């Protein structure tokens, strides 16, 4: 549920400007997930359910420690477990906390037709407003991370809010609060980026993880959830994290040129028809028989 306290930057399906947009500045918030210090305890999964008041979900055993195969409409936060064997034969568990990435350029918001169903706050949080959601799932089409999930009973789509309700009250998200190892951090984007860079430098210089890096994909103008990965060149092995995510170019064509062609085409068509009516007018039949002119319609 969207917070009433945060400054709004962008609104889905909205004709015209954002009311009160740019009224005040807010610094970008960011969640940092250091996958190298995650122990897979799932305290963040529990904290997410507790804060958002969802019941515990039946688990699905999938030959891993993963709670279930995918996130769900009422299970927004899932540690993805992947068994990985390095070329030298060493085995490791790759554990990645999967949730909404809060893209700076959100594909869900670009695709959504419902006015106000998705908002982006000035601090970078992308939030769904279920009272305006119509259940079309265009957000699923637009999302490069497969995050929005449909509730078939209420016909509404749900996802991680980055605890916008807590953040607007000056609190950190529930998952951050619960993390026992300190692998989750929350703060300004600049601070989290800086912390992540220092951590990857440490990994590269003092451990065997020479390819450690920060995952902050630029294809979606960066995200408000960033990862420290011990192998930045292969993000896919961390539970299918896309390497170069971006909003699908066909979504861009649909919401860009095709929409403009449609809008202008309908207006130009109406103007053209009016012009034709005034310039040429109706085609009326007249029968000529024995010099009599008789009008028929």
């Amino acid at each position, binding site marked *: 549920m969207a917070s009433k306290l945060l400054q709004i930057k962008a609104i889905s399906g909205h004709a015209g400007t954002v009311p009160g947009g740019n009224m005040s500045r807010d610094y970008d918030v960011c969640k940092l997930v250091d996958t190298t210090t995650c122990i897979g305890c799932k305290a963040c999964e529990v904290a997410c359910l507790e804060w958002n008041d969802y019941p515990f979900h039946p688990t699905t055993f999938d030959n891993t420690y993963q709670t279930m195969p995918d996130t769900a409409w009422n299970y927004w936060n899932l540690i993805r477990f992947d068994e990985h064997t390095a070329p030298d034969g060493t085995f490791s568990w790759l554990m990645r906390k999967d949730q909404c990435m809060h893209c700076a350029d959100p594909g869900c918001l670009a695709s959504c*037709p419902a006015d106000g169903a998705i908002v982006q706050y000035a601090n970078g949080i992308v939030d769904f407003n279920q009272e305006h959601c119509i259940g079309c799932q265009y957000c699923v089409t637009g999302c490069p991370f497969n995050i929005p999930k449909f509730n078939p009973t209420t016909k509404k789509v749900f996802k991680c809010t980055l605890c916008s309700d807590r953040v607007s009250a000056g609190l950190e998200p529930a998952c951050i609060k619960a993390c026992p190892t300190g692998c989750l951090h929350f703060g300004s984007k600049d601070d989290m980026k800086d912390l992540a860079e220092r951590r990857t430098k440490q990994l590269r210089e003092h451990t065997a993880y020479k390819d450690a890096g920060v995952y902050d994909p630029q294809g979606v103008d960066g995200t408000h959830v960033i990862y420290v990965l011990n192998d930045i060149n292969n993000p896919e092995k961390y539970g299918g994290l896309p390497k170069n995510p971006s909003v699908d170019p066909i979504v861009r064509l649909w919401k860009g040129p095709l929409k403009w062609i449609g809008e202008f085409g309908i207006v130009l068509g109406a103007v053209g028809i009016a012009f034709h*009516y005034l310039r040429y007018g109706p085609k009326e039949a007249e029968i000529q028989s024995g010099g009599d002119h008789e009008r028929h319609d």
Partner: protein
Amino acid sequence: MSDTTSHAFLRHGPPSDRVQRFTWVERIMHWFTAAVYIYAGLSGLALFTPYLYWLAIVLGGGPTIRTWHPIVGIAFVIGVFWMHHVWSRDLKLDSDDIKWLENVKYYITNQDEKLPPQDKYDAGQKVYYWGMFGSAIVLLLTGPVMWFPELMPRNLHWVLPIVTFLHSAAALVTIGGAMIHIYMSISNIPGSLKAMTQGHVSRGWAMLHAPKWYARISAREKNP
């Protein structure tokens, strides 16, 4: 009581100066398809552009149109396939039609006498029909995917942008055609709306707009 007293009787069929163009079944088919098309088109436009999202409110709200648009869309496709069954034989393009289309500027500028004679439907109507028929097939193939995206497995999500784009593009083709179609029937061709409401046209109308068809039916009238 004198034999010279005038009296009226109920007419069955068109008046003697008019000819039947559409049967009552064809008229029901047309207006059924038109009604569901208008609902599906307007609700689709609401979902297509924020500037027309107010149409969603007019039609009962966003969740309502999200529920009904696909169902009514199926009704539209059924209507188009019904039309195909009944009309497609008269809608095949012949060599006169090709010449007509090459010289369509004379039709637009009301210089119809420079155009080859047309059968029951002119080439413009035929092109409109095939545009609607082709678009209806695209809408039918893409619509169900957008209806139930939750049933799409993750590894097939890449088709969602493609079907959404094709659905919108095909719908725009139908909207362009329908705008012209409605203008022609209401204003540009006097008498054609009555053909689709009451079923008949004047002989002058038939001679002017469908001379090859009129020649056939008037020959049939002379030699039944």
